[in-house]
Protein backbone atom coordinates (compact mmCIF):
# COMPACT_ATOMS: atom_id res chain seq x y z
CA UNK A 1 0.00 0.00 0.00
CA UNK A 2 2.67 2.48 1.03
CA UNK A 3 4.77 1.86 -2.09
CA UNK A 4 1.67 2.57 -4.13
CA UNK A 5 1.22 5.87 -2.32
CA UNK A 6 4.81 6.92 -2.95
CA UNK A 7 4.50 6.04 -6.63
CA UNK A 8 1.31 8.04 -6.75
CA UNK A 9 2.99 11.10 -5.28
CA UNK A 10 5.80 10.74 -7.79
CA UNK A 11 3.32 10.68 -10.63
CA UNK A 12 1.68 13.87 -9.48
CA UNK A 13 4.96 15.59 -8.82
CA UNK A 14 6.40 14.70 -12.20
CA UNK A 15 3.50 16.47 -13.92
CA UNK A 16 2.81 13.45 -16.02
CA UNK A 17 1.34 14.99 -19.16
CA UNK A 18 -1.38 12.45 -19.72
CA UNK A 19 -2.44 12.87 -16.10
CA UNK A 20 -3.07 16.52 -16.70
CA UNK A 21 -4.90 15.83 -19.92
CA UNK A 22 -7.24 13.59 -17.95
CA UNK A 23 -7.74 16.18 -15.23
CA UNK A 24 -8.37 18.87 -17.83
CA UNK A 25 -11.00 16.78 -19.58
CA UNK A 26 -12.74 15.99 -16.30
CA UNK A 27 -12.99 19.66 -15.43
CA UNK A 28 -14.12 20.56 -18.93
CA UNK A 29 -16.91 17.98 -18.92
CA UNK A 30 -18.17 18.65 -15.40
CA UNK A 31 -17.93 22.43 -15.60
CA UNK A 32 -19.73 22.47 -18.93
CA UNK A 33 -22.44 20.24 -17.52
CA UNK A 34 -22.91 22.56 -14.56
CA UNK A 35 -23.06 25.57 -16.86
CA UNK A 36 -25.75 23.98 -19.00
CA UNK A 37 -27.60 22.71 -15.96
CA UNK A 38 -27.58 26.22 -14.53
CA UNK A 39 -28.85 27.76 -17.76
CA UNK A 40 -31.73 25.29 -17.76
CA UNK A 41 -32.22 24.67 -14.07
CA UNK A 42 -32.12 28.13 -12.52
CA UNK A 43 -34.84 29.70 -14.66
CA UNK A 44 -36.85 26.49 -14.47
CA UNK A 45 -36.62 26.44 -10.69
CA UNK A 46 -37.54 30.12 -10.46
CA UNK A 47 -40.45 29.64 -12.85
CA UNK A 48 -41.87 26.83 -10.76
CA UNK A 49 -41.28 28.74 -7.54
CA UNK A 50 -43.10 31.85 -8.66
CA UNK A 51 -46.01 30.51 -10.63
CA UNK A 52 -49.10 28.53 -9.86
CA UNK A 53 -50.23 26.09 -12.51
CA UNK A 54 -51.98 22.73 -12.69
CA UNK A 55 -49.66 19.86 -11.84
CA UNK A 56 -47.21 22.07 -9.98
CA UNK A 57 -46.92 19.77 -6.99
CA UNK A 58 -46.40 16.78 -9.26
CA UNK A 59 -43.60 18.51 -11.13
CA UNK A 60 -41.89 19.50 -7.89
CA UNK A 61 -42.03 15.91 -6.65
CA UNK A 62 -40.66 14.60 -9.95
CA UNK A 63 -37.76 17.05 -9.99
CA UNK A 64 -36.89 16.26 -6.40
CA UNK A 65 -36.97 12.56 -7.21
CA UNK A 66 -34.75 13.07 -10.26
CA UNK A 67 -32.05 14.45 -7.97
CA UNK A 68 -31.46 10.82 -7.12
CA UNK A 69 -31.35 9.61 -10.73
CA UNK A 70 -28.75 6.85 -10.78
CA UNK A 71 -25.86 7.89 -12.99
CA UNK A 72 -25.84 4.58 -14.85
CA UNK A 73 -29.50 5.07 -15.72
CA UNK A 74 -28.78 8.54 -17.03
CA UNK A 75 -25.91 7.05 -19.01
CA UNK A 76 -28.12 4.35 -20.45
CA UNK A 77 -30.80 6.83 -21.51
CA UNK A 78 -28.30 9.08 -23.24
CA UNK A 79 -26.50 6.10 -24.80
CA UNK A 80 -29.68 4.75 -26.35
CA UNK A 81 -30.62 8.20 -27.58
CA UNK A 82 -27.27 9.02 -29.14
CA UNK A 83 -26.55 5.60 -30.63
CA UNK A 84 -26.56 5.60 -34.43
CA UNK A 85 -29.59 3.39 -34.27
CA UNK A 86 -31.24 5.74 -31.79
CA UNK A 87 -33.37 8.83 -32.30
CA UNK A 88 -30.47 11.28 -32.11
CA UNK A 89 -27.96 9.08 -33.88
CA UNK A 90 -27.59 11.53 -36.71
CA UNK A 91 -25.83 13.91 -34.30
CA UNK A 92 -22.97 11.44 -34.30
CA UNK A 93 -21.74 12.40 -30.85
CA UNK A 94 -21.78 9.08 -29.03
CA UNK A 95 -18.38 8.29 -27.48
CA UNK A 96 -17.36 11.96 -27.42
CA UNK A 97 -16.96 14.49 -24.59
CA UNK A 98 -20.17 16.16 -25.79
CA UNK A 99 -22.14 13.01 -24.98
CA UNK A 100 -20.56 13.01 -21.53
CA UNK A 101 -21.57 16.61 -21.01
CA UNK A 102 -25.14 15.79 -22.00
CA UNK A 103 -25.29 12.85 -19.59
CA UNK A 104 -23.92 14.88 -16.70
CA UNK A 105 -26.21 17.78 -17.50
CA UNK A 106 -29.08 15.32 -17.18
CA UNK A 107 -27.82 14.41 -13.72
CA UNK A 108 -27.10 17.90 -12.46
CA UNK A 109 -30.08 19.87 -13.79
CA UNK A 110 -32.62 18.37 -11.33
CA UNK A 111 -30.32 19.24 -8.43
CA UNK A 112 -29.97 22.84 -9.51
CA UNK A 113 -33.64 23.19 -10.43
CA UNK A 114 -34.83 21.71 -7.13
CA UNK A 115 -32.48 23.80 -5.00
CA UNK A 116 -33.30 26.93 -6.99
CA UNK A 117 -37.01 26.32 -6.58
CA UNK A 118 -36.69 25.93 -2.83
CA UNK A 119 -34.45 28.97 -2.48
CA UNK A 120 -36.59 31.23 -4.66
CA UNK A 121 -39.79 30.06 -3.02
CA UNK A 122 -38.41 30.95 0.40
CA UNK A 123 -37.21 34.30 -0.88
CA UNK A 124 -40.59 35.03 -2.40
CA UNK A 125 -42.24 34.66 0.96
CA UNK A 126 -39.88 37.33 2.22
CA UNK A 127 -40.11 39.73 -0.71
CA UNK A 128 -43.62 39.17 -1.95
CA UNK A 129 -45.16 42.30 -0.42
CA UNK A 130 -42.32 44.62 -1.38
CA UNK A 131 -42.10 43.42 -4.98
CA UNK A 132 -45.85 43.45 -5.47
CA UNK A 133 -46.02 46.94 -3.99
CA UNK A 134 -43.37 48.07 -6.47
CA UNK A 135 -45.40 46.61 -9.30
CA UNK A 136 -42.57 44.34 -10.42
CA UNK A 137 -43.54 42.16 -13.40
CA UNK A 138 -43.27 38.37 -13.48
CA UNK A 139 -39.98 38.08 -15.36
CA UNK A 140 -38.38 40.87 -13.34
CA UNK A 141 -39.39 39.18 -10.09
CA UNK A 142 -37.55 36.05 -11.11
CA UNK A 143 -34.46 38.01 -12.12
CA UNK A 144 -34.51 40.03 -8.88
CA UNK A 145 -34.85 36.99 -6.67
CA UNK A 146 -32.26 34.99 -8.56
CA UNK A 147 -29.74 37.80 -8.14
CA UNK A 148 -30.70 38.34 -4.52
CA UNK A 149 -30.22 34.65 -3.77
CA UNK A 150 -26.98 34.47 -5.72
CA UNK A 151 -24.95 33.11 -2.80
CA UNK A 152 -27.33 30.25 -2.08
CA UNK A 153 -27.61 29.52 -5.78
CA UNK A 154 -23.83 29.46 -6.15
CA UNK A 155 -23.74 26.88 -3.40
CA UNK A 156 -26.30 24.89 -5.38
CA UNK A 157 -24.07 25.10 -8.47
CA UNK A 158 -21.10 23.90 -6.47
CA UNK A 159 -23.18 21.01 -5.19
CA UNK A 160 -24.04 20.18 -8.78
CA UNK A 161 -20.38 20.28 -9.74
CA UNK A 162 -19.53 17.94 -6.90
CA UNK A 163 -22.07 15.45 -8.16
CA UNK A 164 -20.81 15.68 -11.73
CA UNK A 165 -17.12 15.46 -10.86
CA UNK A 166 -17.61 12.43 -8.67
CA UNK A 167 -19.70 10.26 -10.94
CA UNK A 168 -18.40 7.60 -13.30
CA UNK A 169 -21.42 5.51 -14.28
CA UNK A 170 -22.90 7.85 -16.85
CA UNK A 171 -19.77 9.03 -18.58
CA UNK A 172 -18.18 5.63 -18.91
CA UNK A 173 -21.23 4.38 -20.79
CA UNK A 174 -21.67 7.30 -23.17
CA UNK A 175 -18.02 8.23 -23.46
CA UNK A 176 -16.57 4.78 -23.94
CA UNK A 177 -13.51 5.62 -21.81
CA UNK A 178 -11.41 6.15 -24.94
CA UNK A 179 -7.75 6.69 -24.23
CA UNK A 180 -6.78 10.31 -24.78
CA UNK A 181 -10.26 11.32 -25.77
CA UNK A 182 -13.00 10.50 -23.28
CA UNK A 183 -11.03 9.34 -20.32
CA UNK A 184 -11.63 11.36 -17.15
CA UNK A 185 -10.36 11.07 -13.61
CA UNK A 186 -13.17 8.84 -12.44
CA UNK A 187 -13.17 6.56 -15.48
CA UNK A 188 -9.39 6.25 -15.31
CA UNK A 189 -9.53 5.34 -11.64
CA UNK A 190 -12.04 2.62 -12.52
CA UNK A 191 -9.88 1.38 -15.37
CA UNK A 192 -6.54 1.48 -13.57
CA UNK A 193 -8.00 -0.23 -10.55
CA UNK A 194 -9.32 -3.01 -12.72
CA UNK A 195 -5.92 -3.31 -14.37
CA UNK A 196 -4.34 -3.50 -10.97
CA UNK A 197 -2.28 -0.35 -11.62
CA UNK A 198 -2.90 1.21 -8.25
CA UNK A 199 -0.37 4.10 -8.10
CA UNK A 200 -2.05 5.82 -11.02
CA UNK A 201 -5.49 5.18 -9.58
CA UNK A 202 -4.45 6.52 -6.19
CA UNK A 203 -2.81 9.60 -7.72
CA UNK A 204 -5.98 10.47 -9.57
CA UNK A 205 -8.11 9.63 -6.57
CA UNK A 206 -6.07 12.07 -4.53
CA UNK A 207 -6.38 14.81 -7.12
CA UNK A 208 -10.12 14.22 -7.42
CA UNK A 209 -10.63 14.38 -3.67
CA UNK A 210 -8.47 17.50 -3.62
CA UNK A 211 -10.67 19.15 -6.21
CA UNK A 212 -13.81 18.22 -4.29
CA UNK A 213 -12.29 19.69 -1.12
CA UNK A 214 -11.47 22.91 -2.96
CA UNK A 215 -15.03 23.06 -4.30
CA UNK A 216 -16.38 22.63 -0.80
CA UNK A 217 -14.07 25.33 0.47
CA UNK A 218 -15.40 27.59 -2.26
CA UNK A 219 -18.94 26.79 -1.18
CA UNK A 220 -18.05 27.66 2.38
CA UNK A 221 -16.40 30.94 1.48
CA UNK A 222 -19.34 31.83 -0.76
CA UNK A 223 -21.62 31.45 2.24
CA UNK A 224 -19.31 33.66 4.27
CA UNK A 225 -19.24 36.21 1.47
CA UNK A 226 -23.00 36.07 1.35
CA UNK A 227 -23.16 36.86 5.03
CA UNK A 228 -21.53 40.15 4.24
CA UNK A 229 -24.59 41.17 2.30
CA UNK A 230 -27.03 39.47 4.58
CA UNK A 231 -26.28 41.10 7.85
CA UNK A 232 -25.84 39.05 11.01
Amino acid at each position, binding site marked *: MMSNLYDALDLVRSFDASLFQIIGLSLFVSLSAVAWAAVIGVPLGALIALNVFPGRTFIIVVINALMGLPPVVAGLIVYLSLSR*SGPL*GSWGILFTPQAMIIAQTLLVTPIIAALTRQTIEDAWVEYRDELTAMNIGVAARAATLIWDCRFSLTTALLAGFGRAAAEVGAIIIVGGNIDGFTRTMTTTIALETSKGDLPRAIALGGVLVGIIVIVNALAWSTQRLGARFSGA
Partner: protein
Amino acid sequence: MKRLHTLAALAIFGALSMTPASAQDKSIVVASTTSTQDSGLFGHLLPAFKQKTGIDVKVIAQGTGQALDTGRRGDADVVFVHAKSAEEKFLSEGQSTKRYPVMYNDFVLIGPKSDPAGIKGTKDIVAALKTIKEKGAPFISRGDRSGTNMAELKLWTVAGIDIAKDKGPWYKDIGQGMGAALNTASASNAYVISDRGTWLSFKNRGDLVVAVEGDKRLFNQYGVMLVNPAKHPTVKADLGQQFIDWLISPEGQKNIADYKINGQQLFYPNATDPNA
Protein backbone atom coordinates in the same frame (compact mmCIF):
# COMPACT_ATOMS: atom_id res chain seq x y z
CA MET B 1 -23.21 45.75 -17.92
CA LYS B 2 -20.86 43.39 -16.11
CA ARG B 3 -23.71 40.90 -16.21
CA LEU B 4 -23.98 41.12 -19.98
CA HIS B 5 -20.29 40.33 -20.29
CA THR B 6 -20.73 37.32 -18.04
CA LEU B 7 -23.69 36.17 -20.10
CA ALA B 8 -21.75 36.60 -23.32
CA ALA B 9 -18.80 34.66 -21.94
CA LEU B 10 -21.09 31.88 -20.81
CA ALA B 11 -22.78 31.74 -24.21
CA ILE B 12 -19.48 31.43 -26.01
CA PHE B 13 -18.27 28.80 -23.57
CA GLY B 14 -21.51 26.94 -24.00
CA ALA B 15 -21.24 27.00 -27.76
CA LEU B 16 -17.63 25.81 -27.64
CA SER B 17 -18.42 23.01 -25.26
CA MET B 18 -20.98 21.60 -27.61
CA THR B 19 -18.89 21.57 -30.79
CA PRO B 20 -17.31 18.18 -31.26
CA ALA B 21 -13.55 18.54 -31.36
CA SER B 22 -13.42 17.87 -35.05
CA ALA B 23 -16.43 16.73 -36.92
CA GLN B 24 -14.65 15.48 -40.02
CA ASP B 25 -11.18 14.65 -38.71
CA LYS B 26 -9.54 11.36 -39.57
CA SER B 27 -10.68 9.04 -36.87
CA ILE B 28 -12.46 5.74 -36.51
CA VAL B 29 -14.18 4.00 -33.65
CA VAL B 30 -13.05 0.45 -32.99
CA ALA B 31 -15.11 -1.69 -30.66
CA SER B 32 -12.72 -4.13 -29.09
CA THR B 33 -12.37 -6.21 -26.00
CA THR B 34 -11.24 -5.43 -22.50
CA SER B 35 -8.56 -8.09 -22.81
CA THR B 36 -6.88 -6.37 -25.75
CA GLN B 37 -7.11 -3.05 -23.94
CA ASP B 38 -6.01 -4.21 -20.52
CA SER B 39 -3.03 -5.98 -22.04
CA GLY B 40 -1.77 -2.64 -23.27
CA LEU B 41 -1.61 -3.82 -26.91
CA PHE B 42 -3.41 -0.79 -28.28
CA GLY B 43 -1.11 1.58 -26.48
CA HIS B 44 1.65 -0.06 -28.46
CA LEU B 45 -0.05 -0.45 -31.85
CA LEU B 46 -2.06 2.69 -32.32
CA PRO B 47 0.69 5.31 -32.22
CA ALA B 48 2.47 3.43 -35.02
CA PHE B 49 -0.70 3.32 -37.09
CA LYS B 50 -1.39 7.01 -36.48
CA GLN B 51 2.09 7.94 -37.48
CA LYS B 52 1.77 6.03 -40.74
CA THR B 53 -1.71 7.11 -41.77
CA GLY B 54 -2.65 10.07 -39.57
CA ILE B 55 -5.80 8.24 -38.51
CA ASP B 56 -6.89 8.44 -34.87
CA VAL B 57 -8.19 5.15 -33.60
CA LYS B 58 -10.68 5.50 -30.76
CA VAL B 59 -11.00 2.21 -28.94
CA ILE B 60 -14.09 1.35 -26.96
CA ALA B 61 -13.20 -1.59 -24.80
CA GLN B 62 -16.14 -3.85 -24.07
CA GLY B 63 -16.72 -7.59 -23.95
CA THR B 64 -16.83 -9.36 -27.33
CA GLY B 65 -20.61 -9.71 -27.21
CA GLN B 66 -21.06 -6.08 -26.31
CA ALA B 67 -18.54 -4.97 -28.95
CA LEU B 68 -20.38 -6.84 -31.66
CA ASP B 69 -23.66 -5.31 -30.50
CA THR B 70 -22.08 -1.89 -30.74
CA GLY B 71 -21.23 -2.77 -34.33
CA ARG B 72 -24.80 -3.89 -34.91
CA ARG B 73 -26.02 -0.49 -33.77
CA GLY B 74 -23.67 1.20 -36.16
CA ASP B 75 -21.85 2.93 -33.32
CA ALA B 76 -18.45 1.49 -34.31
CA ASP B 77 -16.63 1.35 -37.64
CA VAL B 78 -14.55 -1.75 -36.91
CA VAL B 79 -14.90 -4.63 -34.47
CA PHE B 80 -11.83 -6.43 -33.17
CA VAL B 81 -12.80 -9.36 -30.96
CA HIS B 82 -11.96 -12.94 -30.09
CA ALA B 83 -14.88 -15.36 -30.33
CA LYS B 84 -15.00 -16.98 -33.75
CA SER B 85 -18.52 -18.36 -33.46
CA ALA B 86 -19.91 -14.98 -32.41
CA GLU B 87 -17.97 -13.32 -35.22
CA GLU B 88 -19.36 -15.77 -37.76
CA LYS B 89 -22.85 -15.08 -36.52
CA PHE B 90 -22.12 -11.36 -37.06
CA LEU B 91 -21.12 -12.18 -40.62
CA SER B 92 -24.17 -14.30 -41.27
CA GLU B 93 -26.37 -11.40 -40.22
CA GLY B 94 -24.75 -9.31 -42.92
CA GLN B 95 -23.34 -6.95 -40.32
CA SER B 96 -19.97 -7.38 -41.98
CA THR B 97 -18.87 -8.83 -45.27
CA LYS B 98 -15.50 -10.27 -44.33
CA ARG B 99 -13.68 -11.56 -41.28
CA TYR B 100 -9.91 -11.24 -41.12
CA PRO B 101 -7.92 -13.31 -38.62
CA VAL B 102 -5.25 -11.14 -37.00
CA MET B 103 -3.44 -12.81 -34.11
CA TYR B 104 -3.81 -15.40 -31.41
CA ASN B 105 -2.75 -15.97 -27.91
CA ASP B 106 -3.89 -18.41 -25.38
CA PHE B 107 -5.98 -18.55 -22.28
CA VAL B 108 -4.54 -19.66 -19.01
CA LEU B 109 -6.21 -20.92 -15.88
CA ILE B 110 -5.06 -18.72 -13.03
CA GLY B 111 -5.35 -19.84 -9.46
CA PRO B 112 -4.08 -19.26 -5.93
CA LYS B 113 -0.65 -20.50 -4.97
CA SER B 114 -2.33 -22.60 -2.32
CA ASP B 115 -4.10 -24.53 -5.10
CA PRO B 116 -7.20 -25.80 -3.23
CA ALA B 117 -8.26 -27.96 -6.21
CA GLY B 118 -4.84 -29.57 -6.51
CA ILE B 119 -4.53 -28.97 -10.24
CA LYS B 120 -1.53 -26.67 -10.44
CA GLY B 121 0.89 -27.65 -13.15
CA THR B 122 -1.45 -30.04 -14.94
CA LYS B 123 -1.96 -29.82 -18.67
CA ASP B 124 -5.59 -30.80 -19.16
CA ILE B 125 -7.93 -27.86 -18.81
CA VAL B 126 -11.09 -29.93 -19.06
CA ALA B 127 -9.98 -32.28 -16.30
CA ALA B 128 -8.96 -29.31 -14.19
CA LEU B 129 -12.38 -27.72 -14.51
CA LYS B 130 -14.06 -31.00 -13.57
CA THR B 131 -11.89 -31.17 -10.48
CA ILE B 132 -12.68 -27.60 -9.54
CA LYS B 133 -16.36 -28.36 -9.70
CA GLU B 134 -16.05 -31.59 -7.74
CA LYS B 135 -14.03 -29.95 -5.02
CA GLY B 136 -16.17 -26.84 -5.02
CA ALA B 137 -13.06 -24.69 -5.30
CA PRO B 138 -13.90 -20.99 -5.71
CA PHE B 139 -14.06 -19.96 -9.36
CA ILE B 140 -14.64 -16.52 -10.89
CA SER B 141 -16.52 -16.20 -14.18
CA ARG B 142 -16.65 -12.95 -16.12
CA GLY B 143 -20.25 -13.52 -17.08
CA ASP B 144 -20.18 -10.61 -19.56
CA ARG B 145 -20.53 -12.26 -22.99
CA SER B 146 -16.88 -11.49 -23.62
CA GLY B 147 -14.68 -13.69 -25.79
CA THR B 148 -13.01 -15.01 -22.66
CA ASN B 149 -16.35 -15.72 -21.05
CA MET B 150 -17.60 -17.53 -24.13
CA ALA B 151 -14.42 -19.61 -24.19
CA GLU B 152 -14.88 -20.48 -20.51
CA LEU B 153 -18.47 -21.54 -21.06
CA LYS B 154 -17.45 -23.66 -24.03
CA LEU B 155 -14.87 -25.46 -21.90
CA TRP B 156 -17.50 -26.36 -19.29
CA THR B 157 -19.60 -27.83 -22.08
CA VAL B 158 -16.65 -29.84 -23.36
CA ALA B 159 -16.21 -31.09 -19.78
CA GLY B 160 -19.77 -32.34 -19.95
CA ILE B 161 -20.95 -29.91 -17.30
CA ASP B 162 -24.08 -27.82 -17.67
CA ILE B 163 -22.65 -24.97 -15.68
CA ALA B 164 -25.80 -22.85 -15.72
CA LYS B 165 -27.67 -25.64 -13.94
CA ASP B 166 -24.92 -27.22 -11.90
CA LYS B 167 -23.12 -24.21 -10.51
CA GLY B 168 -22.94 -23.81 -6.79
CA PRO B 169 -21.88 -21.03 -4.46
CA TRP B 170 -18.27 -21.77 -5.44
CA TYR B 171 -18.95 -20.33 -8.90
CA LYS B 172 -19.09 -16.54 -8.86
CA ASP B 173 -20.43 -14.76 -11.90
CA ILE B 174 -19.35 -11.13 -11.63
CA GLY B 175 -20.43 -9.64 -14.96
CA GLN B 176 -17.28 -7.57 -15.39
CA GLY B 177 -14.06 -7.32 -17.38
CA MET B 178 -10.82 -9.27 -17.14
CA GLY B 179 -9.09 -6.87 -14.78
CA ALA B 180 -11.99 -6.90 -12.37
CA ALA B 181 -12.17 -10.70 -12.58
CA LEU B 182 -8.46 -11.02 -11.75
CA ASN B 183 -8.81 -8.58 -8.88
CA THR B 184 -11.72 -10.55 -7.50
CA ALA B 185 -9.86 -13.84 -7.90
CA SER B 186 -6.86 -12.38 -6.12
CA ALA B 187 -8.95 -11.09 -3.27
CA SER B 188 -10.95 -14.30 -2.80
CA ASN B 189 -8.25 -16.90 -3.57
CA ALA B 190 -10.21 -18.25 -6.50
CA TYR B 191 -9.52 -19.71 -9.92
CA VAL B 192 -10.23 -17.72 -13.05
CA ILE B 193 -9.67 -18.18 -16.77
CA SER B 194 -7.76 -15.26 -18.25
CA ASP B 195 -6.18 -14.43 -21.57
CA ARG B 196 -2.43 -14.44 -21.26
CA GLY B 197 -2.04 -10.87 -22.44
CA THR B 198 -4.04 -9.37 -19.62
CA TRP B 199 -2.42 -11.71 -17.11
CA LEU B 200 1.07 -10.67 -18.12
CA SER B 201 0.30 -6.99 -17.74
CA PHE B 202 -1.77 -7.37 -14.57
CA LYS B 203 -0.06 -5.72 -11.64
CA ASN B 204 -2.14 -6.79 -8.67
CA ARG B 205 -1.50 -10.52 -8.64
CA GLY B 206 -1.38 -11.11 -4.93
CA ASP B 207 -1.00 -14.87 -4.51
CA LEU B 208 -2.21 -15.77 -7.99
CA VAL B 209 -0.12 -17.93 -10.32
CA VAL B 210 -0.69 -19.79 -13.56
CA ALA B 211 -2.31 -23.12 -12.69
CA VAL B 212 -2.95 -24.73 -16.07
CA GLU B 213 -1.61 -23.75 -19.48
CA GLY B 214 -0.69 -25.16 -22.85
CA ASP B 215 -3.82 -27.19 -23.55
CA LYS B 216 -4.71 -26.86 -27.25
CA ARG B 217 -8.25 -26.07 -26.25
CA LEU B 218 -7.02 -22.86 -24.64
CA PHE B 219 -6.15 -21.42 -28.02
CA ASN B 220 -7.60 -17.91 -28.46
CA GLN B 221 -8.00 -16.43 -31.93
CA TYR B 222 -8.60 -12.73 -32.60
CA GLY B 223 -10.45 -11.50 -35.69
CA VAL B 224 -11.23 -8.07 -37.10
CA MET B 225 -14.17 -6.99 -39.24
CA LEU B 226 -15.36 -3.83 -40.92
CA VAL B 227 -18.93 -2.98 -40.01
CA ASN B 228 -20.97 -3.19 -43.19
CA PRO B 229 -21.44 0.31 -44.66
CA ALA B 230 -24.36 -0.99 -46.67
CA LYS B 231 -26.23 -1.56 -43.43
CA HIS B 232 -24.82 1.48 -41.62
CA PRO B 233 -24.08 4.32 -44.03
CA THR B 234 -22.30 6.41 -41.41
CA VAL B 235 -19.51 3.86 -41.04
CA LYS B 236 -16.15 5.23 -42.14
CA ALA B 237 -15.51 2.36 -44.49
CA ASP B 238 -12.37 3.65 -46.15
CA LEU B 239 -10.56 4.61 -42.94
CA GLY B 240 -11.74 1.44 -41.22
CA GLN B 241 -10.47 -0.73 -44.02
CA GLN B 242 -7.11 1.04 -43.83
CA PHE B 243 -6.85 -0.02 -40.21
CA ILE B 244 -7.71 -3.62 -41.03
CA ASP B 245 -5.30 -3.68 -43.94
CA TRP B 246 -2.55 -2.38 -41.70
CA LEU B 247 -3.22 -4.95 -38.99
CA ILE B 248 -2.86 -7.82 -41.42
CA SER B 249 0.03 -6.27 -43.31
CA PRO B 250 3.55 -7.50 -42.60
CA GLU B 251 4.25 -4.21 -40.84
CA GLY B 252 1.21 -4.44 -38.62
CA GLN B 253 1.83 -8.10 -37.88
CA LYS B 254 5.40 -7.33 -36.90
CA ASN B 255 4.18 -4.58 -34.59
CA ILE B 256 1.90 -7.09 -32.89
CA ALA B 257 4.71 -9.60 -32.46
CA ASP B 258 6.98 -6.90 -31.06
CA TYR B 259 4.69 -6.13 -28.17
CA LYS B 260 6.32 -7.64 -25.12
CA ILE B 261 5.96 -7.36 -21.40
CA ASN B 262 9.07 -8.22 -19.37
CA GLY B 263 10.51 -9.69 -22.51
CA GLN B 264 7.57 -12.00 -23.03
CA GLN B 265 5.48 -11.82 -26.22
CA LEU B 266 1.76 -11.56 -25.66
CA PHE B 267 0.15 -12.01 -29.07
CA TYR B 268 1.17 -14.10 -32.05
CA PRO B 269 0.27 -12.73 -35.48
CA ASN B 270 -1.39 -15.24 -37.80
CA ALA B 271 -3.24 -13.25 -40.46
CA THR B 272 -1.91 -15.55 -43.14
CA ASP B 273 -3.20 -18.74 -41.49
CA PRO B 274 -6.10 -20.00 -43.63
CA ASN B 275 -7.63 -21.95 -40.73
CA ALA B 276 -7.61 -19.13 -38.23
